[in-house]
């Protein structure tokens, strides 16, 4: 077991785990877009950034690729970390505003403006589909093509691959394939429709009725049996 300090808490975790897994084990939420527990970590989306090190000397690292070590001091919720995540979310919003996951993250982190020209890409190059195809499906039908700003994901020769079994795992795992909900600001780069909604049950019952996250306010439309 390895002893370390996570958000001021003395914790001990098994050797060989990553900071992300340790934080998850202790119930601390770290947002991710390119992480899946069944796949090898990749460190592409940078959303899981955490501060590692002594105060004043701490640096930002991606938690999904950082292995735990004896005596580490890790903070997952400092201003620096949150600011970095907000910036990354803003960039993702500009490149992929049609994704529900990214819109949800924007609302969760209170990102309310996008200062970049929207690109309306359909991919954030997180590599989840490439990894699920290789590691779980043992197919290796898709991969990264080209490089730099021209990088994209495709099959060999941009045609239907013989290795592909049409299993659909790549679409299942894709964080941006799920279209955003059709909120009131459908046409705009940023939705924010679910930003700062206090659960309506608080007003009605004076108590939060469930631990659903995000709040399923729509369920309350139904008349309760009286």
């Amino acid at each position, binding site marked *: 077991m390895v002893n370390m300090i996570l958000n001021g808490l003395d914790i001990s975790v098994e050797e060989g785990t990553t900071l992300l897994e340790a934080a998850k084990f202790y119930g601390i939420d770290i947002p991710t877009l390119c992480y899946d527990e069944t796949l090898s970590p990749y460190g592409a989306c940078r959303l899981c950034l955490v501060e590692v090190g002594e105060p004043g000397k701490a640096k930002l690292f991606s938690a999904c690729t950082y292995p735990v070590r004896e005596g580490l001091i890790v903070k997952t919720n400092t201003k620096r970390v949150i600011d970095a995540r907000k910036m990354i979310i803003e960039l993702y919003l500009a490149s992929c505003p049609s994704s529900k996951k990214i819109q949800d993250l924007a609302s969760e982190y209170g990102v309310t403006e996008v200062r970049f020209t929207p690109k309306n890409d359909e991919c954030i190059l997180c590599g989840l589909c490439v990894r699920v195809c290789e590691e779980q499906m043992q197919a*290796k039908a898709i*991969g990264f093509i*080209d490089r730099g700003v021209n990088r994209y994901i495709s099959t060999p020769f941009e045609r239907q*691959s013989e290795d592909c079994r049409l299993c659909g795992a790549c679409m299942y795992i894709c964080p941006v394939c799920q279209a955003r909900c059709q909120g009131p600001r459908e046409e705009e780069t940023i939705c924010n429709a679910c930003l700062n909604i206090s659960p309506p049950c608080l007003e009605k019952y004076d108590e939060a009725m469930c631990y659903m996250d995000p709040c399923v306010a729509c369920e309350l439309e139904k008349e309760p049996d009286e």
Partner: protein
Amino acid sequence: MKKAIVLGFEVPRGPDGVSIVALLQAIQDKYNYLPEKFLRRAAREMEVPLIDVYSVAKFYKSFSLVPEGRHQIVTCTGTACHVRGSEKITEEISRTLGVEVNSTSPDGEYSLKCVNCVGACASAPLVIVDGEYHGNMTPLKAGKLFAQGAKGKTAVS
């Protein structure tokens, strides 16, 4: 270093298998491009997924998946060459030989490519013809360089 024979080419073999780059370079040298059937056969013989071979082929600018001309003309558009007027030189070559930038002339004779830096900025601007470096180019010199070749009498000197 250990060697392996793939598709009749002798290529180095490391601990992780045959070097894909070395094999693709050998194919590119021989055929001036990478034919699809060769890539498929190479993947089978090396027992690597086809997508890995294709990714490597698309990653490097020196590999081409479409047939290239018999003469490779590369103009440098790096900072030093750009400042000293490489754009005009590229235009001049393009006009003299009738070949669009980053493409091959219809008769399959010339391919014109622009690259970002060839590492010889002291003699900017540069034009490389079939691996031969021509420094301190001007549009006039560039035109002369190809004047004979374009008429089809002799190959580029």
